[in-house]
């Protein structure tokens, strides 16, 4: 099958600079369908810039990012027309922001937030839209009776789950997440991570998750990329990298995590 022979996302020699300052240097990677990759590093490592470059939100200075479009194979995402890029962002991709308010319409109901992508794709049956939204609220463990409530009445953890539902309702193949659990209570984080792990497995979702928290990487990602100063200093299977780090920086990161 064609899908098995090409990656979902192919990044080659990606380089991002602000003026003379290089923030992401020469990153290459392949992401396969259903694979979750964690990009780990401290703040200032360039990981968020890398995520934005992969998600077509920040054009790189050089290098390419190619996505396997349905029916047409790997295409340079920066060569797409604006219409194609926006359609992609609404259907086959998801983007979960660190602060849920950035990824939600705070002044419309939870139901409208979740159903919006379906309406944008042309669904016009209110009852069905509402039912699908209700299903998804349940799947992300939000009480469906809150479907008419606005997100500004939700807790941080609930808003984050709402954001996830809003993104996943169109069954995207690739989701980008920027520190999805930071700022949440530890117990809330744990529940959210469990839910994400279940959903990614159920939906065979590929994901790129930026995090400074190694526990998030351990729980969700099969593969891991460690960044320092814009450079990928180590990559590999998550368990291997965490159990047997090779690069001194990775060793430092791993050793500084308090044991549970």
């Amino acid at each position, binding site marked *: 099958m064609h899908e098995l022979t090409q990656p979902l996302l192919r990044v080659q020699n990606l380089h991002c600079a602000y*003026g*003379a300052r290089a923030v992401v240097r020469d990153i290459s990677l392949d992401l396969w369908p259903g694979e979750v990759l964690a990009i780990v590093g401290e703040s200032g490592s360039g990981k968020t810039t890398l995520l934005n470059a992969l998600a077509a939100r920040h054009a790189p200075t050089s290098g390419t990012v190619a996505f396997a479009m349905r029916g047409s194979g790997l295409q340079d995402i920066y060569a797409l027309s604006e219409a194609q890029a926006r359609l992609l962002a609404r259907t086959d991709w998801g983007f979960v922001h660190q602060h849920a308010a950035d990824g939600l319409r705070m002044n419309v109901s939870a139901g409208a937030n979740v159903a919006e992508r379906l309406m944008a794709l042309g669904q016009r049956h209110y009852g069905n839209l*509402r039912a699908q939204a209700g299903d998804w609220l349940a799947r992300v463990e939000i009480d469906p009776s809150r479907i*008419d409530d606005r997100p500004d009445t939700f807790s941080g953890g609930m808003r984050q789950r709402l954001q996830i539902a809003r993104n996943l309702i169109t069954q995207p193949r690739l989701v980008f997440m920027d520190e999805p659990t930071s700022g949440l209570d530890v117990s809330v984080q744990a529940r959210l991570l469990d839910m994400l792990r279940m959903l990614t497995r159920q939906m065979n979702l590929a994901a790129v998750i930026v995090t400074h928290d190694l526990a998030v990487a351990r729980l969700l990602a099969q593969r891991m990329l460690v960044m320092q100063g814009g450079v990928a200093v180590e990559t590999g299977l998550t368990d291997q990298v965490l159990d047997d780090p090779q690069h001194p920086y990775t060793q430092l990161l791993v050793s500084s995590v308090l044991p549970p």
Partner: protein
Amino acid sequence: MYVAVKGGESAILNSYDLLAQQRRGDAAVAELSVAQIQQQLRLAVDRVMTEGSVYDPQLAALAIKQSAGDLVEAIFLLRAYRATLPRLGYSQAIDTGKMQIARRISAAFKDLPGGQVLGPTYDYTQRLLDFSLLATGQSLPVPKTFAPSNEPSPRVVDLLNHENLLETQPVPEGDPDPFDLTRAPLRFPADRSARLQNLARADEGFLLGMAYSTQRGYSETHPFVGEIRFGTVELCLVPEELGFEISIGDLPVTECQMINQFQGSLTQPPQFTRGYGLAFGHSERKAMAMALVDRALRADELGEAVTAPAQMQEFVLSHSDSLESSGFVQHLKLPHYVDFQSELELVRKMRHSFATPGDAHGPA
């Protein structure tokens, strides 16, 4: 018994008569002449010309008389008149460097070539009502005159430019014609020439509020008055038939150059940035407000974060024209009873389903 309402036309005609009476006031009091307004309400005339976009003091004075002193109404009259005038051509850009100066000050420098010329200004008066003006016919004091100085008054911006301290804008390639806001609609994002035209015609009150906001933390541009100059400039035209420049007269203008927050970095030598304001006649408040808002609207261009309303093009430029704002605000007086009827019907219907629960349309 109810009758279908008729008589809108006769009501309008009668209202014209009432309006004329209101405008005239007590017939026993001498009628105001257009010449009196032109001479003695000069600053009102200047404002009406500036926002009306027509330099003609007599017409502006007439508009003020007709509108009984409502300047926004007078501006409307002048603009509507302007719309009927054919466009004969475009003048050359005026050269304020060659202005016959009546007043010229700089807050940025204590003294400068050409000197600080106070001229006629309310700035240093005490705002005490002068009851002697209740009477007419007093003799006026004669101000001292000085022999006109031969010392030139170069613009402060030119002086700063010698040292490269002030940003300069290179002439765009091909020296294109400026956008003409009176002929084409404003689209966003608007370039600077379109923005400046919009600001020149903008309602002074709105612009003043926006400018003030930039001084109170809604964006900060650290402004200094580089120079304000008021005086007459020559207006020149190159008629097609002649092919050379002729002077068609003088007109008084007020120009304000603001010097603002410098920009630069370790790799780029810093320079001050600028804001510009221009108005007909003696209109300092307007020219200053315009210069502050001009600078705020350059945020995008200068790489500054847009955080405050005065920096948002669409917010400022869409709401600055008094004809548009006054027209739309006041249009609410027009009948809207058909639309209101539709709303009434819905609200009644919704209230009805409240009172009778189990309605299929209620929320799940």
